[in-house]
């Protein structure tokens, strides 16, 4: 454990699927047990390698959804893409007991550490919520009470990831504020018509820049570009905005 962490070396490890949970009709959470997992920090990702019987292999990156834990469990939430090469397998065919190759944990920049005490602004576009959820969960697990706000842009109510958990958290934790922004279909009587996030929404639902929050933005590239520009226009210091892009198609890498 210490050896892997000390050298900082990222290596391929074998993880065994221990649980599967469908979050929506297209997204599934896969829990792995990884015996030699060295631990991770919220926001990091892993590479998953699938190798066919003819030797052809494909590697994709997926954000870690779970908080660091002592059970050496790692959860990934994967969104199925219609033309994806890897995501259909991970969201439809995989079974408990399957063994997969994982490389990680990866990345030391797009991370939130439990020692951070400043206000945190999270902006998620679609499945960009996954690494931000790891931050929310890590905060809870660490008993950290730094004030968090999440602005979650999502296609429609049925596409919300971790819906019950998010609702329970925002109902019971006054220091976590949650705002949904629907882009295609909003619930009946929702105050805001469906649409992309804009300056008005940013002004009304996110931390003002004079509180100097650290902002984490994750989602498809167009969402990240737009959200980061809105934050800068609202007066946020670009050095306090950290971004992670999933590409224009939404497939991580």
């Amino acid at each position: 454990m210490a050896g892997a962490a000390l050298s900082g070396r990222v290596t391929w490890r074998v993880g065994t699927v221990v649980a599967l949970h469908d979050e929506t009709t297209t997204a599934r959470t896969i829990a792995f047990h990884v015996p030699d997992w060295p631990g991770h920090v919220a926001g990091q990702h892993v590479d998953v390698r699938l190798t066919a019987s003819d030797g052809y292999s494909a590697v994709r990156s997926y954000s870690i959804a779970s908080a660091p834990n002592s059970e050496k469990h790692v959860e990934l939430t994967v969104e199925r893409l219609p033309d994806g090469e890897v995501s259909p397998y991970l969201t439809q065919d995989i079974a408990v007991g399957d063994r997969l190759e994982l490389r990680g944990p990866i990345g030391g920049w797009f991370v939130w550490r439990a020692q951070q005490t400043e206000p945190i602004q999270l902006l998620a576009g679609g499945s960009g919520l996954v690494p931000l959820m790891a931050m929310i969960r890590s905060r809870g697990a660490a008993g950290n009470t730094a004030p968090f706000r999440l602005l979650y842009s999502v296609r429609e109510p049925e596409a919300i990831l971790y819906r019950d958990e998010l609702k329970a958290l925002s109902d019971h934790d006054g220091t976590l504020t949650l705002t949904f922004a629907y882009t295609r279909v909003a619930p009946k009587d929702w105050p805001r018509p469906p649409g992309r996030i804009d300056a008005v929404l940013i002004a009304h639902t996110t931390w003002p820049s004079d509180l100097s929050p650290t902002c984490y933005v994750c989602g498809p590239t167009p969402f990240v570009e737009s959200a980061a520009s809105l934050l800068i226009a609202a007066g946020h210091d670009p050095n306090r905005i950290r971004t992670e892009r999933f590409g224009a198609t939404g497939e991580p890498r």
Partner: protein
Amino acid sequence: MSSQSDDYLDGNAAAGELSNIFAIDITAAEGQCAHCGATKHFAEAHLYTQAPGFVARCATCQHVLLRVVTVNQRVLLDMRGMTYLMFDTSRLHDSGQ
């Protein structure tokens, strides 16, 4: 052409492949663009993957910082676009909690 496109990722997405080369995480390392002099974390670079390998470009001026091409068992690393990379080794003990 591709530098104008919206279809890029960030340096984070290259971290897995670069872990084959670098012993410690490169995404949190600060690098200086040899063209415009901007100093940013490697994670902030724009990463283009529609190529044989990938190309990282400066988020400020779009000049090429780094190229990696893998053919068979050979990995070509071209870092002509960076004058330096600075690693913060104080985080090396950080493995989670």
